[in-house]
């Protein structure tokens, strides 16, 4: 765990103001509550990814698995308790881990896949890339993305439009 000690002091003082931390805890708690169906401070482990991402983080699947491994019980129950989730999630937010993907970087990623620089991609080629490489999409994920991304008249993905539509202002 990182120690937040200001250089030159002998007493370990929290670097972050108490008010900020308290506010953060409540934000985390609120997001957690959305999935706490039985109001007993636990959520299904399969929802953890959604909760972390909804708090503004962009972890990869691998990074997500690491976080879950850290907060699971010694004998995994399929549920994550809030007491274990809170400190880990607070650290993640305070350290700005799993930073957002900026829009221009995202656009570059699409351009890399668009080897012929046509300004668009075929559904088939995007499907191939995203279901076979990196951290592959499931069929359902791919279908859902295509339903939003493909221009129905031309059956092509104009990724520049797609990116700008999807990166609308995030209220959080």
């Amino acid at each position, binding site marked *: 765990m990182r120690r937040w000690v200001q250089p030159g002091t002998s007493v370990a003082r929290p670097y972050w103001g108490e008010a900020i931390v308290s506010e953060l805890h409540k934000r985390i708690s609120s997001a957690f509550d*959305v999935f706490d169906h039985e109001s007993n401070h636990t959520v299904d482990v399969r929802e953890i990814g959604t909760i972390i991402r909804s708090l503004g983080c*962009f972890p990869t699947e691998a990074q997500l698995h690491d976080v879950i491994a850290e907060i699971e019980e010694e004998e995994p129950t399929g549920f994550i308790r809030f007491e274990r989730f809170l400190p880990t999630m607070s650290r993640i937010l305070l350290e700005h881990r799993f930073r957002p993907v900026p829009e221009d970087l995202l656009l570059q990623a699409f351009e890399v*896949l668009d080897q012929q620089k046509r300004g668009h991609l075929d559904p088939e080629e995007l499907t191939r890339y995203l279901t076979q490489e990196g951290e592959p999409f499931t069929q359902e994920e791919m279908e859902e993305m295509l339903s939003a991304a493909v221009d129905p008249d031309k059956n092509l993905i104009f990724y520049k439009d797609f990116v700008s539509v999807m990166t609308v202002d*995030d209220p959080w």
Partner: protein
Amino acid sequence: SVTGTTLWVIEQMPVLSIKAAVLIQRWYRRYVARLEIRRRYTWNIFQSIEYAGEQDQLQLSSFFSFMLDNFTQLNGNGPGIEVRQCKYEQIVVPDSYSGPRLSFPLSVTDTNTLLSAFKEQQTLHGKYVLQLLHETQKFLKQMPNVIYLSSSYAKEITICGDLHGRLDDLLLIFYKNGLPSAENPYIFNGDFVDRGKKSIEIIIILFAFLLLYPDHMHLNRGNHEDHIMNLRYGFTKEVMQKYKTHGREILQLLQDVFSLLPIATIIDNKVLIVHGGISDKTDLYFLSSVERHRVSLLKCRLTKQSSSSSSSSSSSASSVCSPRASCRATPRHPPPSPRLPSPVDMLQVPFLDSIVSLALPEPPKEELEWRQIVDVLWSDPKNQNGCSPNSFRGGGCYFGPDVTQRLLKKHGMCLLIRSHECKQEGYELCHNGQVITIFSASNYYEEGSNRGAYVKLGPELIPRFFQYQVSRSTRKLTLQQRVSVAESSALKALQEKLFAHRSELMAAFQQYDINNTGRISTNEWAQVVESVLRLDLPWRTLRPRLVRLASDGNVEYESCFENISAGQPIPQVTPNLAETMYRYRTDLEIIFNIIDKDHSGQISIEEFRQTWKLFSSHLGVDVDDQAIDDMARSIDFNKDGSIDFNEFLEAFRVVHKLDMKEQQQG
């Protein structure tokens, strides 16, 4: 990682492409998660408001029952006006009637006629409705509380969940799965009515098939098969609107038919099917022996624990007041004579919960019977062990996997199928696969909110699920669009709740805002809203959608009322009074419908005044008598001493300003 990829793909995809793919995937998954949380809290909003409404309903039910039974004492008209028991045979159907005509006993021609007529938006004539209900009543009287079925080796049985007046969903099920018949048996697991606009049509179709195929069509009672629920959730209104002449009789007969519906169905002694669920007290043998016809579900509701003995006295009196014939083939007893409390007792009953002066004590057996049925119709499963009262709904229990396991094991069963809760996919499994929830009304909260589903069981009793979704638009909406539409609708409902409690909220906000800056912290805002509205919602997550932040990071609390305003301000009515009327609109509508026995749409100012006094006393709402009088008189537009209550209710609408802007631009 690159494992598992074939060689030609590696050749074609340099490292940069792999990185690009990961980036896109990472970003997209985060985008989907954002949508998912919006979808979830939208769901929470709808569900919270729905269940809070049901809770209100249950809490007010003793008041409504009281009104139903005793209202006429208010204007001194003597014993209740008896609804003419019109013989349906005497009703003449005019030649000009172009709707479906039924002939009893029913045949396949009749059910086909009904289906095509309803597809054409036709209405079945009141005569046939009454006749159908009479026949159904006769039939159901011989049915036991718990129906035992056996699956034959050839057939699958189809089980459907809540329909809530959505005819399109029922027709879609029949289209996909075939009509009920000897080869195609069905069980409908309750909640056929309320909320949707075609409840009576669904009832007619289900009862028609019930009479046509009594061995292959089965109906379980749901918590909405109850006349008090119907008052609030739309079925009563629908019947009165569609059947101006015979509506009252139809409703009276329906009330009886609903109470005769079986409570549970069991297949092969292995699968238990009930509408809600079970509790740790559920006893199938006891349930089988209960006189279901005599148990009045909401009337027996205990409103406060401390006054359990007193409120139960009131409820037994009210069930005595509504005499019901026994459903058993025992020598007929004359129905008990209606016992109307004297005018002095009357005022004490509904709202002074600790004082009741009615004679009959509650027999303990009735209380137990009532509880057995309420548990089965209202309970919800939960993931943790144990059994606790269902505070969310106000009735029944939350039952854990251990409760399920114990009950199923006790009776040698392997599966519990229930409905009662809307599920996004139309169905859900829990309790290690021992409980199935099946819900058949798609788009229940909002267009695109959820799928509907039905489940089929063959002789091996392995469930197969089938999903569908009724779609009004031809163009398929993307996930983003579906979520946005549902979210917008949920947020509007929430804003209306905020509006309805405006003065209380503002008073509480201002307590934190000592310097009158118009701002308080997010924390304070969330605390106030939660305690005033008493809705258990993730307020901080919702905050950006409901209220504005100032540049210093604090909440501008008045901005949550910005988007909503009263429809048409009435000059004599202060904003506070208007807010109170708005908050209790639904309840007032119910009360008006109860009072307006001849369904003229009018009540006298005197009736309005007295009703309001009773109601506000019950709620503990303090409203100046003079203010009520002034308001009543100002609503009496033609000055004839009576109020058109539809006009009255219209006066307390709200409008969403953004909607108005759209309408003006569009």
